[in-house]
């Protein structure tokens, strides 16, 4: 789209705000509802695990590959997890080719944080023998963008990890065609991202809502604990708001966990 983005964003932002003044959203959702979520696991057979998630029109494909590696010096008895992301230029007229932008990097690091802090991947199970361990690479590929990469990415990463099989390691060789079993997942983390527009807070913002918002906050929890939080953009939140949103995230956790489990083949 060639449009003068500032000018059209102003128009769309005014529209979003007008609707919010009546507690309405552009797709007629409730303030605290997710868009429709669909999960398709295992489509990339070359990968050790994969999952394609649609959160409304936002589509993220997560691929997991295990690489034979050396444990890190300070953790000699476990393997590693690396999460990366690419905002593919085919996902939006506003995405450009090139090295990962700060938006892509923040996206990858926030998704990583939730999974790591909740100890979802059992890193000790990735240890093979002295000097040898697996590194789990999760790559988030954004295929279509309409807001809220964080939650789409978190679900995709979590689902792909649940779908992941560890390759067989025998006689000093990786035999990818065979597996020694599923990747050991000890915990499930889910996230909820909120946008604040004119002091109203809504869950799972679309692209237009993100462009209209003052502040944004992503909260990741497992069943009992808050595991990661990322507040983004310029606007601010009060302590009460943060606590209320943590409660909403805990409430949504069971629902999202159910959707994740159901999608596992």
């Amino acid at each position, binding site marked *: *789209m*060639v449009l003068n983005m500032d000018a059209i964003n102003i128009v769309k932002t005014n529209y979003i705000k007008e609707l919010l003044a009546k507690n309405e959203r552009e797709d007629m959702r409730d303030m605290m509802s997710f868009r429709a979520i669909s999960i398709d696991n295992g*489509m*990339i*057979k*070359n*990968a050790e695990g*994969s999952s394609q998630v649609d959160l409304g*029109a936002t*589509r993220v*494909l997560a*691929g*997991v*590959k*295990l*690489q034979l590696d050396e444990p890190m010096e300070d953790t000699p008895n476990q393997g590693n997890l690396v999460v*990366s992301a*690419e905002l*593919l*230029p*085919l*996902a*939006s*007229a506003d995405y450009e*080719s090139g*090295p*990962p932008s700060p938006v892509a990097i923040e996206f990858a690091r926030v998704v990583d944080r939730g999974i790591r802090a909740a100890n979802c991947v059992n890193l000790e199970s990735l240890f093979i023998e002295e000097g040898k361990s697996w590194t789990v*690479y999760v*790559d988030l*590929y954004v*295929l*279509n*963008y*309409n807001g809220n990469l964080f939650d789409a990415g978190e679900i995709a990463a979590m689902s792909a990890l649940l779908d992941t099989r560890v390759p067989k390691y025998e006689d000093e060789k990786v035999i*990818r065609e065979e597996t020694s079993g599923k990747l050991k997942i000890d915990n499930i983390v889910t996230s909820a991202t909120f946008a604040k527009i004119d002091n109203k807070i809504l869950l799972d913002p679309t692209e237009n809502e993100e462009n209209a918002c003052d502040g944004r906050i992503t909260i990741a929890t497992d069943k009992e604990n808050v595991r990661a939080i990322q507040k983004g953009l310029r606007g601010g939140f009060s302590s009460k708001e943060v606590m209320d949103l943590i409660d909403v995230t805990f409430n949504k956790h069971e629902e999202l966990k159910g959707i994740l489990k159901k999608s596992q083949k």
Partner: protein
Amino acid sequence: MASSSNKPELIKNGKRLDGRAFDEVRDIKITAAPLKNADGSAYIEWGNNKILAAVYGPREATPRHLADPSKAIIKCKYSMAPFSSLSEHGRTGPNRRSIEISKVIKEVFENVVMLTDFPGSEIDIFIEVLQGDGGTRAAGLTAASVALASAGIHMKDLVYAVSVGRIGDHLALDFNMIEDNYSDSDMPVAVAPRNDEILLLQMDGGMTREQMSDALEMVIKAGKKVSEIQRDALKKAYASEAKEKNGA
């Protein structure tokens, strides 16, 4: 070409490893316009290849000072996802191979797209290999053609590509990854089917003149089927439009 010391036998009892005949192309499925934001797109499953092609444009050329006031500029980016390979985790970002592939594919479309219909603009083609198993540039190009058509870009023809190569004395179409790695010669070819005009041809290894001639013939013959699949994908996506207008 991989070393011939651990070369697996690509042909056993006169048949290829996956049971295909020498002139048989793998199964192909194409879906037109699967993406919402892109102006045009296509998803192709070709054997075990899974590739997404998308088009944006014609749109304003950026940077503006590089726009060509007489015609459209075509940009093409071919890349492979880090999880696309059966073996190692790949590195992101362009490498020399993907840059070269992007260039030769771009040149195919610079031929068939009617560039002067969109002066001063830019047409962007993105080819993302989500899963690769040999012949990704042919599959990617075949999908990109469909994506361009679904974006309404003006073109002379709907180009397809198929690769052909040599294993010992046998010419064989459409190598998968293993065949690709251990073959004696490999040649991707893109064809504009209306006049069977060759718009992409790359080759390495060794082929006699007669083998070259036979190889090109094999491509053109098999290409008819590939072209049909492309056309069917586009027709399927708009079938109801035709029905409605005729019935109405």
